[in-house]
């Protein structure tokens, strides 16, 4: 049995900070909308709090659960996630909201299969790469992983959820990078990925307009540019110190998805540049500690798993903040640990638990 240490406390407290801040911001940002639409200002907050507790439970569970055990679960988990991915696309099984079929409901319990896929795929790729060792330098050896990733991304794209599909592919890409896949191969993969995105846009031309509205949102202020303009209004209104917690005005139904994808705009408005900088700093610390965990992991599997989890969270955070600040094309993707959304929160906290578990076996 390998030697166990204390988990990475800095990582843990960083995550706890983000989680607490997220809960406060969900309350602040969703209260008005919840009151208007549900007659209960705490509607979203209570659900998020519940999921945070569930997530923390998962975190503590996986903190103790030996991550090596996951290798055995790789294929069942991957298989299960693909079943869900296909199920969600079947009308009547998947729930439709905002024109996309992303949820599966069982009774009052509903979840996003995409979150499970993210985890399943991560295990599958980390497991595979760690088994292949130096073989990963050959393109042929990567084919199964690329194939499975491509299939998963395609299924998510059918929901449609371009943002999540991109984050998924991006995570795998980062993982391949860490594993030492030659840069030339990665370059080719990147080009292939771009081509796929191009194809996806070509199939659904509405995406093009929405995607590139961020370049000049004022060209179509009531259409494609609406989200981003409202988001910029919110962030800009914050100034250095913000309007103060709860004092934001853009969340008053101007800002769409104010407690989910655009929660960072509310942070910018209420907590100002200082608050936004704090959130970014916390994420950078999380990435630092996560990659450090990967670096000191006792084995290749742990290393890839830690790197993958960290990359997944970091990539999502980067894309989300990029979108909200109008720096990246608009794709609907939540801010990990902060945005409202049960499945995402639980799975993120669970994966943090795994990360912390890996950190316990650090070799120095």
């Amino acid at each position: 049995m390998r030697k166990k240490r204390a988990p990475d406390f800095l990582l843990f407290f960083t995550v706890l900070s983000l989680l607490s801040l997220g809960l406060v911001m969900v309350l602040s940002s969703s209260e008005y909308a919840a009151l208007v639409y549900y007659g209960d200002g705490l509607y979203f907050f209570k659900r998020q709090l519940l999921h945070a507790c569930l997530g923390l439970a998962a975190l503590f569970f996986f903190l103790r659960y030996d991550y090596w055990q996951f290798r055995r679960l790789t294929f069942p988990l991957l298989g299960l996630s693909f079943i869900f991915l296909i199920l969600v696309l079947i009308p009547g099984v998947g729930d439709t909201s905002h024109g996309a079929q992303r949820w599966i409901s069982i009774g009052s319990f509903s979840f996003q299969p995409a979150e499970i896929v993210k985890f399943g795929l991560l295990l599958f790729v980390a497991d595979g790469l760690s088994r292949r060792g130096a073989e990963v330098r050959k393109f042929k050896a990567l084919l199964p992983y690329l194939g499975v990733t491509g299939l998963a991304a395609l299924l998510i794209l059918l929901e449609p959820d371009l943002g999540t599909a991109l984050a998924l592919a991006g995570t795998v890409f980062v993982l391949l990078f860490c594993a030492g896949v030659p840069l030339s191969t990665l370059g080719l993969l990147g080009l292939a990925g771009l081509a796929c995105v191009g194809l996806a846009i070509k199939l659904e031309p509405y995406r093009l307009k929405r995607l590139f509205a961020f370049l000049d949102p004022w060209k179509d202020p009531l259409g494609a540019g609406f989200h981003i303009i409202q988001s910029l209004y919110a962030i800009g209104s914050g100034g250095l110190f913000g309007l103060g917690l709860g004092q934001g005005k853009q969340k008053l139904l101007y800002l769409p998805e104010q407690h989910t994808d655009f929660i960072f705009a509310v942070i910018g408005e209420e907590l100002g540049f200082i608050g936004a900088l704090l959130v970014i700093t916390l994420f950078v610390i999380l990435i630092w500690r996560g990659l450090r965990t990967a670096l000191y992991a006792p084995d290749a599997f742990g290393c890839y798993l830690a790197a993958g989890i960290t990359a997944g969270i970091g990539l999502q955070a980067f894309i989300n903040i990029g979108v909200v600040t109008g720096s990246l094309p608009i794709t609907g993707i939540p801010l990990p640990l902060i945005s409202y959304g049960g499945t995402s929160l639980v799975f993120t906290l669970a994966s943090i638990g795994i990360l912390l578990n890996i950190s316990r076996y650090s070799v120095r």
Partner: protein
Amino acid sequence: MANIVIRRRLALLFLSSLLFFTCLVGRLFWLQIVKGAELQKQAQENRMRDIPVEAKRGDITDRNGRLLVTSVSAESVAAFPPQIKDPGKVAAELAPLLEMPEEKLKELLSRRQAFVWLKRKVDYHTAQKIRKLRLEGIELYEESRRQYICGSLAAHVLGFVGVDNQGLLGVEKEYDQVLRGVPGRIVIEQDAVGRDIPSALHRFYPPRPGDKLVLTIDETIQHFVERELDKVVAQYHPASAVIIVMDPKTGEILALGNRPTFDPGNWQKAPAEVWNRNLAIWQIYEPGSTFKIVTAAAALAEGVVRPEDHFYCPGYIKVADRVIRCWKDGGHGSETFAEVVQNSCNVGFIQVGLKLGKEKLYHYIRAFGFGKPTGIDLPGEASGLLIPEDKVTNLNLATISIGQSIGVTPIQLITAAAAVANGGYLVHPHVVKAIVSPEGKVIKEFSSQPVRQVIPTQVARELCKLLENVVLKGTGVKAYLDGYRAAGKTGTAQVVSPKGGYVPGKYVASFVGFAPVEDPRLVTLVVISEPQGAYYGGEVAAPVFKAVMQDALRYLGVPPQEGLARPTKPWYEQVPESKPVKVPSVVNLPVHEAVRALKAAGLSFVLEGEGDVVCSQVPQGGATVNAGTQVVLNLKATPEGGGAEVTVPDLGGLGVREAAVLLEKLGLVLNPEGTGIAVSQSPAPGERVKRGLAVKVKFAPPELKTPP
């Protein structure tokens, strides 16, 4: 511990993510610190809902401060749809009060809008009833409604406003910015669906009332004008009529009226062509003889003619292989230029025009302001029509000299005439005298300075005298004013067809003149298009001029003078110049032959008794009498004993009444067409016809004999 490649890659990954997140921080710095204030302002504006508070629109008064247009408050009903819980119920309650269909109201109340107007400017009682209902999400806002106190008085000058009190025509449009004021606002910060939000910003910006306009119009003189226009319409049923009264020294329009007209308070009820055409500045017509003022002014100013110069009018003039006839049969004979003006002799004016040449005539036409808008402060002014100077032929020059082949607007013509009255100085016509602030402070006064001198003062005075003779002895005697020396010029022109050429039987009768001649106070133009029954400018328009001027001058307190020269009878009531003629003997001749013989001798006649043969005559044949003397013919039945047939007499040259009497004596009936002097008849003279037959006779005015 991972291998070296992986270690390097992980480090690289961390560094690149650090770089990426630093970029995001940079972006945030740009948005929040650099652009922060700007975005915050935009965001606030985006969240603000403006509720406009209308400013009270400025009043409009006449030159003496008499109120013509004011604004009274009226309330408008608005709804905030997001606050209305049961649109169906609210619609049902409001529908009968607002007199609107319930479905329409329900649709308005269910709209996904923060704010909708339900009905604008309802009356006071309706507003009170709605207020009492205390419906949530229904608000009343005070607005104002324009009130035109004198109905349709000066409608085309005042214009009118639309539902948002925006000026649409007349001075209401021209001075909209002045009258409008600055609307106030109530600004309320709201959420995206129109609810007031907690800790919302409220701001009230009070409106600034609009400034007042003081017109140059004199309400009383305008009343005279409206009264005369109504009379003209009742008497002549013209297609349109225009009267303008102007102060020749300042260019101030004292009255301006058009027919047809409309009520500015209910402008929607009148056809668009009535309210959107201010004929006084929009109508383009051939001025005819009134334009001879310009020809005369140019000729006198250039010295090509003097009043005492001699002319000879043989009744026609040949210009470029066309024969243009004077309106008077046989011509005016030998006459001075003064008489040419007085008689409105076409031949004389054409000679003068040709002598002037097109360069000089055009110089004066332009100097008097024709060919371009006068710049009066009313919307919709036309430029008139001028044949381009390089395309003017001699024939054009000839016809332009007598006011044909040129299109002018009434305002251009009166401005030109005013220049003659004003010692040769052209003024700028305008209808607004001053702009006054709501507090009564004069903000702007409009200059009444002359624009330029068109003809020397001496020439203008000379022309005034010639024009005075028109009223005293010429075509304009019906414009004669009791107690005031008036000068002016008549005009009878044919209506130009849009297809080119003239519309047969349609005329524009006009008169332009001013008084008192020694110090003109008013210049008035009367233009009556397509009058029915009569159409000479001197007969139709001149009396209107007289009626307006007589009242206006007396109203203005211009002292009347005693012992002024009396006018002669109008030309069509005048007997030809007396010269001795020998009376032919017509006893025992059939009536028609007797009449022909008398006419040939230059005598008139009167018929007594019944029959178709002359049995005796007074004076006897062979007597010498003055030309034009009446010869009494006593009639008897034909020797055959009054057969059923009579000989049709030659009616050529007779007036309507004379012809009717003659035919009646012969047992025939007159079927007249037109007015003036008989020009043709059917059956032809000399034909034997049954008694009781109707003889068709065409009458035409002498001026008609001038071909276009």
